[in-house]
């Protein structure tokens, strides 16, 4: 049944982000306000802010590229050396939790599980989502923000330009894909159009004007409808009010946003490599977290497919063959993984730089790093390594390695996330019958909780 909450959540997908609720913009900036001292403080109207980031690298995440030598069973990471591909995380080892041994055999991840990677169900090329994905479900559960869910996708420059939005990983329900944003100019316009200048500003104003007129026309066309249709059509009109209202609400906090909006430089308009856009997309995603606009960020490096390009870090090969390379010890994959980890570090540092409550934003954040392709491109999904960074306000163990001893699917990790976010969930997107085959237990992963 349609209702206002679902409508608003539904809007999330459209922008690659969601409008949270009808509260005032200041209330909804991740429930934060900025004190005169520049310190982010909790808004009185809200619960503790929390945020989750999903970083999905395509082509698999081989365990030997993340499990330290000597880690055969669950233990502390202290005294262990992180493998070369993730060495950038060494200084953050106390915030890291490496999980080995989850599985996703039911998601048919060979080449990519696509929506199944975050949905925990069967996916594949051309297979539509069969339910909402964990990032979307979390965005609904975490304390409301202006746009609870933002998805960004990184690919070759050519693909990002010709297909600036694409939907492969996230979904708000069965048959309802959520688009990733890959053109930073468009994304900047969406997030910060109101405080932009130059061409982005022009685009923003023109689009705003059209949307205002569309809303007006929709309202006129809704007059004199039969009573039974008024509510249903009213939701359509309300959708435009929400779109336009978001713009207005962002405008009311423009001074706040200015503090966090990245500076538009030459990489936006004239990128030399695809990684220029990868970097600025990450900046935009992080800024949306820092400014409190969003509570859930999904990053698809390779956009959930089996291609992708990283020429900017010296990887001349692109595309499908990268997946055919055996990752352990391979210099190309070491570079890509290192690049990923540098991004993770940038995110953590950025969130660490913002005080929040008695600590920093990073204290209330969890970064989930994994692949939409389990451990490798041609895989049956029997092992699906995951790294967690941060502890989401103390909910997760850190500084440790967990080797799963029992048969638990990635769904169980997602159920854990939902529980920590505040929504009771024994199984995520898995009914009892399927669970009997694929899950040896039920409920959250006790192994990863603090």
């Amino acid at each position, binding site marked *: *049944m*349609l*209702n206002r909450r679902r*409508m608003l959540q*539904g*809007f*999330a*997908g*459209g922008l690659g982000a969601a409008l949270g609720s009808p509260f005032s913009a200041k209330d909804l900036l991740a429930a934060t306000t900025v004190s005169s001292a520049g310190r982010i403080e909790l808004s009185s109207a809200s619960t503790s802010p929390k945020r989750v980031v999903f970083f999905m690298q395509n082509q698999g995440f081989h365990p030997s590229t993340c499990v330290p030598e000597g880690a055969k069973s669950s233990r502390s990471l202290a005294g262990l050396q992180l493998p070369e591909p993730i060495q950038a995380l060494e200084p953050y080892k106390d915030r890291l939790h490496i999980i080995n041994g989850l599985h996703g055999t039911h998601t048919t991840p060979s*080449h990519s599980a696509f929506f199944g990677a975050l949905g925990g169900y069967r996916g*594949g*090329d*051309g*297979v*539509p989502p*069969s339910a909402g994905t964990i990032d979307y479900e979390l965005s609904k559960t975490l304390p409301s923000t202006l746009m609870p869910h933002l998805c960004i996708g990184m690919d070759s420059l050519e*693909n990002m330009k*010709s297909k600036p939005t694409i*939907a492969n990983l996230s979904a708000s329900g069965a*048959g309802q*894909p*959520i*688009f990733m944003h890959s053109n930073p100019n468009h994304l900047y316009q969406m997030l910060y159009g109101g405080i932009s200048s130059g061409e982005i500003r022009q*685009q923003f104003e*023109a*689009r705003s004007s*059209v949307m205002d*007129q*569309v809303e007006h*026309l*929709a309202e006129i*066309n*809704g007059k*004199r*409808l*039969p*009573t*039974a*249709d008024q509510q*249903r*059509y009213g*939701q*359509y009109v*309300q*959708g*435009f009010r*929400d*779109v336009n209202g978001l713009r207005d609400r962002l405008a009311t906090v423009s001074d706040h946003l200015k503090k966090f909006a990245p500076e538009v430089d030459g990489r936006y308009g004239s990128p030399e490599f695809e990684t220029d856009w990868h970097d600025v997309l990450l900046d935009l995603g992080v800024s949306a977290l820092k400014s409190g606009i969003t509570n859930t960020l999904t990053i698809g490096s390779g956009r959930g*497919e*089996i*291609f992708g390009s990283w020429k900017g870090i010296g990887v001349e090969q*692109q*595309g*499908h*063959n990268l997946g055919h390379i055996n990752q352990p010890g391979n210099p190309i994959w070491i570079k890509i993984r290192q690049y990923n980890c540098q991004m993770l570090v940038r995110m953590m540092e950025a969130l660490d730089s913002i005080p929040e409550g008695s600590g920093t934003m990073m204290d209330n954040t969890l970064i989930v790093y994994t692949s939409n392709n389990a451990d490798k491109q041609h895989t049956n999904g029997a092992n699906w390594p995951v790294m967690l960074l941060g502890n989401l306000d103390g909910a997760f163990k850190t500084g440790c390695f967990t080797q799963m001893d029992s048969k638990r699917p990635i769904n169980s990790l997602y159920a854990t996330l939902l529980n920590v976010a505040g929504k009771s969930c024994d199984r995520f997107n898995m009914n*009892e*019958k*399927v669970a*009997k*085959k694929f899950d040896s237990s039920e409920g959250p992963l006790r192994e990863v909780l603090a």
Partner: protein
Amino acid sequence: MTIGEPRTIYFLLLTFSLFHGTARGYTPGDPAGLTFEGFAKGFLQDHCTDCHGGSDAEAGLNLEGLGPIDEINQAQWKSIWAQVALGEMPPSDVESPDVIDRLKLTDWIVRELSNHLQEFGGFLASSDPEKGNFVDHDLLFGVLPPGIKLNPTSSPARLWRVTPQEHVTRLNELINREPDYDPKKPGLRSHGDVVPTNHGGELKIYFGTDRIIQWQGGTVAYATAVKSLPAVLSSARDHGLKNYPSFYTVNSAEATQILGAAEDIIRYMAYGPLSIAQAYQITDDPKSIADKMEGDIRGLPSSIVYATSVKRPITPIFELFESDQANDKLVKQAVDYLYEAVTFRPPTESQSRTYQRIVHDSIEKLGKEQGSVLGLSSIFLERDALFRPELAEEGTPDSFGRVKLKDWELGLAVNHALSYIKPDSVLRDAIAKGKMTTRDDVRREVERMLADDSIRKPRVLRFFRDYFDYDRGGYICKDTAALSSTGVNTGSHYRAMFDATASTDRLIELVLQDDKDVLKRLLTTEQIVVTRGDNLYLGRRRSQDEEAASVAAAKLAAEEAAEKAKAELEAWKLANPGETPPKQKKSRQPSINHKIDPATLRGDKVFARVSRRSFGNGSMKPDRELAVVPEGQRMGILTHPSWLVSHSDAMDNHAIRRGRWIRERLIGGGIPDIPITVDAMLPDEPKTTLRERMRVTREDYCWTCHKKMDPLGLPFEMFNHAGIFRETELGEVVNTSGKIIESGDEDLDGEVSDAIDLIERLAASERVEQVFVRHAFRFWMGRNETLHDANVLQEAHRAYRDNGGSMRALLVSLLTSDAFIYRQRDTPASSTQ
């Protein structure tokens, strides 16, 4: 129950007399004046609390203290509504309330639930198509008891949101030119057919695939490189009728995505492949650009080569972008064209001016190209591009408050009844010239469209998909080991199911083409449309002994072949002493499926409609054969893998769902919702048959409902959950017995030996035909039938039957009925009976 001519005449006379107020009585759906104290309480006391009262109340349900409907007890009242409407309660062995009291109580409950649940989204169950059968079949097709007063029927004024399939097909018209209908190859997808789902089951619009002559890489590289847009509008239902007007709206996520899609579409309309590729990629000689295609560019848009011939429709949008200037005339032409293309009717002068102004404003802000794209894209969000109005705002209501649809609303209603694309020129002219106002006008156009095969009618096929639910097979996620045990290839199963859906589509169209005994033929035909790979799906699952024998035979054959090769080698060495024997070619072991004895399927070449090229050379192929099913193993659609797998689950058959389908869609029975207290799980016993595991449904509490479903689904145990025919299960002869009970037709009830026996009996039933007509009514009227529709249903059934089981006659009858033509702007909220 059968309907004879005299009964119908009696009914009409009765109806006539009641319309004219010669008798005082109850008007179904109008419980005005009824209250809990004045009516419902007494009903409970008279008919319910004898059993459901006191300390030993039946089933632990005590209704003695039940008060007026409120938020707390609403679930209990909903259950009472279902039980009384379905005639389940009071039970047959006690004195039954009369029909009018039953109607009054159920109408009162619906009204009260609707009122009390208004703030919680309303009470929608009574208008859900799955509850359509809650209206008594015998009252619809039989004689009404005295005292029931019927009104002339109509449907409510309303907005229909377009379906995802309609929307995608509508947008596809803007950028792709589909081939004209070829009477020599009638199954090939042609202009007006729905855009089908792709190789993976995703509904998408593809850009420029008809011009792609080369690409780098394989299937996945193609799928990644090619430009496509997924369907934006959503549909939450996967079984049964999916598109009542009241189901959906367009949310802001969808609206935002539509705007983005619109910009891509407008650019493609303007520039064709140049909007998605570099100029050098457009050539008829791919070799001439070999230097630009070097390296591994698989999966990139630049890996595609497009032919130079223009395939897309050339429209005023193209002319606007081709011109140096965006003058008033060009903008007006573009606006008017696009408006009609997405709403199916021309804009009014005022609407045209409004959108021209938006385009001009955008051009002023962003320049001609970007401004035109942005401004024109707003038209895709016009209300009538996403909703189809049947508001009947003009016209004078008759004495019953009904207003006839006319002109564009009536013309588009007729068009929408059959088609997903805009009205053809004949219909458009008729509308524009004021010749779409009467019932005869409707009949003229419907008969014309039905008689012309070149006018594609995807809505009719959509009805059969919704009715039979045979299009879910590819979406049923199978456990790999369980699937493997059925004998089919686990790697190609999902694809095979999407192919099977397309095959069943085509079979239905072939039956519709003959238009004789349509339902009966669909249920009993021995014909089947197949692909080459279907010889496995239509084969026979070998028994354990046969499978072991097959494995042994293959092993023996391999050993004999090795022996023979060895002997030949020895002989060669003897004949050529001292010489090195030539390298033996490694003979490829034949791939033998030991689990399945494949069927031999041969027949005339036919075609099925499949997606545009979505997966390179691995895309779905239209080639099919019209074959005959193996004798004695299958009969009609319900025994085809597409239907069987659609009604299965990850591990096994779904006998309950199959049984429910037959109970609801053929017999016309209703099943109340599962009480929330029920843990609806079968035990997990891999070494036990489904029939045995379903023993839990035979517990008293469950069996009340399950006895009406399970024995109808279990005869299909003659197939495994991939739809393969089998005679044994777990080493024993498979039990395929079943039973029809309480069908409402005594001739129908009784034991059945297997699915074929069951189907033969059902296919011969007139009641089953009537239930089919009820579903057709729901689909085309967009609502559940009420008792006021009895005459329409009977007329439709008579038209179908008198014309030899003609779907066309049925459609003409329904589409010229008052229920289709008349609208009521204010329908009482409680009209459920």
